[in-house]
């Protein structure tokens, strides 16, 4: 029972991060029609940025954390002009291929030019394994606590932006009908840039929490995370924000539980098997496409 609880808590923390990443991903998909496979890589590069700054400043968290957020935000905005010609044509397939190109470059940078491609570790002060609550031998660490509630706050802030502000309304208008959005006088390019910025911001926040939960980063993490994001989005339905949130959580919990209970590498197969069935039976995803 305690193992179950420990796995569940871990799963919730991880799941909340998946939910956050998927949300940022969906934002780009909805507003600009861009499938940014390299979004996960931008998150991981944010982690690396934090590591570089932490190493340079002697583990100064006040500098390291903003470094991650800033790096991801800037990187995301930098990719906007690359996607712009494809966005104009609404060529989703090509945005995916382009994002693979970007991912190749980012992975290369991490694998060859930072720390010789070896995993980078984050200081204890960040991951803070000190326990907050105990369930017998299972415990919720401060890090997991921060992660779970931090991501909840981030998601809530984002949803507030999307549903209660004019900017958010403009985003949703662009998602539903780019033509009508244009007629309403919404500055498409500026809003597009803003969406990349906000997605990058969310990514940076995720990077911080990932650093907290995982304690380390490595170059292949980009691909690993990217594939999970894409798989979750497919499962939930392309562009479906609410679906993405829920399925991100489910994925995290499922991972946490299967790692504990299923032998070998079956957890991956289970996840992908579920996805395959969904695709065959309901290609729009469980909650339906919203693009």
């Amino acid at each position: 029972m305690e193992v179950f609880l420990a796995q569940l808590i871990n799963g919730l923390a991880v799941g909340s991060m998946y939910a956050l990443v998927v949300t940022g991903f969906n934002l780009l998909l909805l507003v600009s029609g861009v499938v940014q496979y390299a979004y996960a890589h931008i998150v991981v590069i944010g982690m690396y940025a934090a590591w570089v700054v932490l190493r340079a400043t002697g583990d100064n968290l006040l500098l390291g954390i903003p470094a991650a957020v800033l790096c991801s935000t800037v990187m995301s905005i930098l990719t906007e002009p690359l996607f712009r010609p494809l966005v104009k044509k609404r060529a989703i397939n090509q945005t995916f291929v382009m994002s693979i190109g970007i991912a190749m470059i980012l992975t290369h940078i991490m694998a060859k030019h930072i720390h010789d491609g070896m995993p980078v570790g984050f200081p204890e002060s960040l991951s803070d394994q000190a326990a907050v609550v105990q369930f017998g031998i299972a415990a919720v660490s401060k890090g997991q606590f921060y992660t779970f509630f931090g991501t909840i706050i981030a998601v809530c802030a984002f949803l507030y932006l999307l549903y209660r502000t004019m900017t958010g309304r403009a985003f949703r208008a662009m998602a539903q009908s780019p033509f009508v959005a244009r007629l309403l006088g919404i500055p498409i390019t500026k809003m597009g840039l803003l969406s990349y910025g906000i997605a990058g911001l969310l990514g940076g926040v995720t990077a911080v929490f990932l650093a907290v939960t995982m304690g380390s980063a490595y170059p292949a993490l980009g691909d690993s995370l990217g594939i999970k994001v894409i798989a979750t989005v497919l499962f939930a339905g392309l562009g479906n924000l609410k679906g993405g949130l829920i399925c991100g959580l489910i994925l995290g919990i499922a991972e946490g539980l299967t790692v504990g209970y299923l032998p070998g590498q079956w957890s991956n197969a289970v996840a992908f098997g579920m996805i395959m069935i969904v695709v065959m039976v309901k290609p729009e995803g469980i909650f339906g496409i919203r693009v």
Partner: protein
Amino acid sequence: MALPVLNYFIFCIIFILLSWAVYLPYRCGQLYLAPIYCMCAGAYFGAYAVTAWDWPVALAILASTFVGALFAFFPAIGLRKAPGFATAIASMALIFILQTVIMNLKFVGGSAGYFGIPPMDYPLITSLTVLVIAGIIIYRVDHSRLGRAAELLFYGREEVGCFGVNIAWVGMILQVLSGGLSGAAGALFAFTVGSVFPAAFGFSFLLIIFPIVFIGGNFTMWGAVFFAPILWGIPLILPEAIAEWKDVIFGTLLICILIFRPEGVVSKQVVRSIGIGIQLLVRINKEH
């Protein structure tokens, strides 16, 4: 022929086959990533058939083609009508599922892989034969009603039904053909490398195929033919210092091509111009 050069040519052929396998469904607007999955199936089947059942190599390659097609057929039941991008993710899932399944199958070596696959007797001739047969099939498909139907689908998936195009049929055939090509490629791979292991047939394979298809030319089969040797070969002959940057160069090329020339270098215009040029040359020669 020196072994490295031989391997280079055979790998070019493998990459061309795989690029064609991605090219075919892309003709009707589906980004189809299952070639890697079918290749894995074909490779393992061919390897096992020759080592455990003592099949002759040629038969194994033929069988692998069918195995690849079969592995493509079942998912195609659901995927043939899927909108362009959903196909990409779903077929990507196939890659990982098969990888994971094989990693847990002890009788083909599990994660460690399957070794001791004998090489082909006449590697170059065998591979070239496979390539030429595949090329002819693709050429015929491209210039048939199916090819034209696919092109219509590419430009307007929803409107096309009124032209009498059966979306399900087109999608199915293209995906199954793609599977067959990949199965054959997988068998060639197995017999050339001598061993197969799950990690080889992963997502990273796409990082070579995508540049070939999208930089080379995604609206004609000839793009892959020219660019597979170029993109595969150039990093091999460049000095180490530059070759190290291969990923960055490929990534940058991919991004630039998509922005400036999305149809790829070898576009239909280019093929047509070359075709006309060749006809002119032949005519000039005849007159002498």
